[in-house]
């Protein structure tokens, strides 16, 4: 059974568009326009797309904070509308990593507060909060007031809060937005650990490198519709994205060779080509370089990135 299933999910918003000083017109925004997808248990699933594509709407519907206008969705086998309370028991959520806490409470007090709202006793909540502070790397900073936290610390506390009820599924809406590289790395490693422990992670992000590194499955959403879905490798293959091959030749000037040549970072000529068969073509280039009596300075085979996938899919 899937951890998350959506069928023909729809959500519309009415926005007021000003026509003149006195008149306004209702405009219909299709935030989700027939989204169907399935997320297996224990995987990291990423929803990517441009701003306003419907990512946060999707997260809010799945986490029961928004009622859809059409279609249906199940989380952990429970209907998100009819069995919202059941869904809430088994999920954790990070919506905006720098919001959702009392500024005049400490990190641990905030966690204990949420833990007790989830039904833990005070002792259990304190114990769990301490574990999560360690897990997220906040440690002793848990005793500091939330208002003194940096953005990175707030993001870590958000994730700790999302885990306070031992959820089966966590929803993370852009969990590393605005974080410094070290904090972002810590959170990525935490997400990876969660999936290893069998938790299902549903995340959104604009950082394609991060998505590629973490996700088992990626879905691209554009104007409320899923336009591509699969593992990062599948998506690249489906779009027939080419590898990029670079072979540096130790030579003073560009040799007379049957491959496109550019000048590399070290000033040597570099054979640069896009290919679907990187292994075969690499052998061919090296053979040709040696046949002409040159040495190979270095070789680079660059895989197509998920960013290219997204660019290609969104520009269709």
């Amino acid at each position, binding site marked *: 059974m899937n951890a998350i299933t959506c069928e023909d999910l729809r959500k519309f918003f009415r926005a007021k568009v000003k026509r003149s000083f006195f008149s306004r017109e209702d405009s219909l925004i299709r935030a989700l326009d027939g989204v169907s997808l399935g997320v297996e248990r224990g995987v990291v699933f990423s929803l990517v797309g441009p701003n306003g594509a419907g990512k946060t709407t999707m997260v809010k519907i799945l986490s029961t904070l928004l009622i859809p206008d059409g279609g249906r969705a199940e989380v952990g086998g429970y209907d998100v509308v009819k069995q919202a309370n059941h869904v809430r028991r088994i999920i954790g959520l990070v919506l905006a990593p720098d919001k*959702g806490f009392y500024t005049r409470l400490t990190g641990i007090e905030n966690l204990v507060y949420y833990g007790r709202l989830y039904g833990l006793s005070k002792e259990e909540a304190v114990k769990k909060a301490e574990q999560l502070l360690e897990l997220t790397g906040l440690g002793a900073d848990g005793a500091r007031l939330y208002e003194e936290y940096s953005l990175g610390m707030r993001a870590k506390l958000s994730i700790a809060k999302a885990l306070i009820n031992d959820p089966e599924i966590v929803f993370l809406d852009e969990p590393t937005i605005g974080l410094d590289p070290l904090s972002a790395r810590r959170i990525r490693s935490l997400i990876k650990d969660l999936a290893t422990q069998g938790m299902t992670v549903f995340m959104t992000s604009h950082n394609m490198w991060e998505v590629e590194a973490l996700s088992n499955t990626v879905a691209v959403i554009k104007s409320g519709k899923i336009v591509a879905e699969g593992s990062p490798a599948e998506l690249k293959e489906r779009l027939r994205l080419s590898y990029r091959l670079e072979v540096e030749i130790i030579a003073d000037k560009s040799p007379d060779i049957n491959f496109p040549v550019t000048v590399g970072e070290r000033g040597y000529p570099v054979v640069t080509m896009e290919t679907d068969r990187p292994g075969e073509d690499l052998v061919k280039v090296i053979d040709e370089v040696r046949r002409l009596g040159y040495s190979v300075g270095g070789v680079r085979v660059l895989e197509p990135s998920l960013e290219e996938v997204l660019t290609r899919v969104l520009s269709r």
Partner: protein
Amino acid sequence: MFGRVESIGRVFAEMERGLTTYARYRIWLFSDLMSWPFWTIFFFLSFLMYSPSLLASQYHLNAFSWAFFTFIFVSSFIWSSVFLATSAQEGILEYVLLTGSSVRQHMLGRMVISILDVAVGGPALLLISAVGFGTRLSVAYPALMVVSLAVAGVFFYIFSSILAVLLVSLRSPWIIINVAQFVIPFTSGAIPVEALPPEIQGAVLYSPFFYIIHPIIASATGLFFIPPEIVLPVGGLLCLAIYIVGRFLEKVLLRRALRRGKFTLF
């Protein structure tokens, strides 16, 4: 699904959160202590502008000091309505609802602060009135006073929760609360009802707040306009009625909020 034990745990969590926060917002208590004497003077003289000679009437001064007590009571409770709007703006409300907690439970943490405000502010106001205007500090029926305060506490807790849900989307809820804090008590029994002209008395009796506020003043002054054996049960029934209305409204309004994706009603 969410058992009674969980609910009790939530109540304690919210109350502890409220107390901890209150202790860290010392500026609030300081501001109350600073402002109470000024408000006392303002209220006394605003009413007595029409007849400054009444400054010599012990009964009227006593009645007015208890009227201001009810003002502080109502004001402290309904100001807590702003809390929900703040909670929504700070992204806390959504997470709290996700835990299965209700708005009423969430409001409890703020209500603790209101109760503390009344517990400190009410006696302080009575003391200031006694020192500044010579009112008496005695209470005619202490037992009835305790019951009246308990009924009023329950009523205004639920009423403020409803108001909070109604005001959650407003950018300036403070204006509405500023007005309501005067209108509610002073149209509903804070001004000694027995002293009002008969046609105004009739109108006051139509206000549900009268049956909550009048028993407090009457227990202090000893003058019940409606006998306590009637007015207090009516107050209790009103608590029940507002609880039912509140549950229904909370359900409807929250569902509407979840449909629109934001905690807004207008």
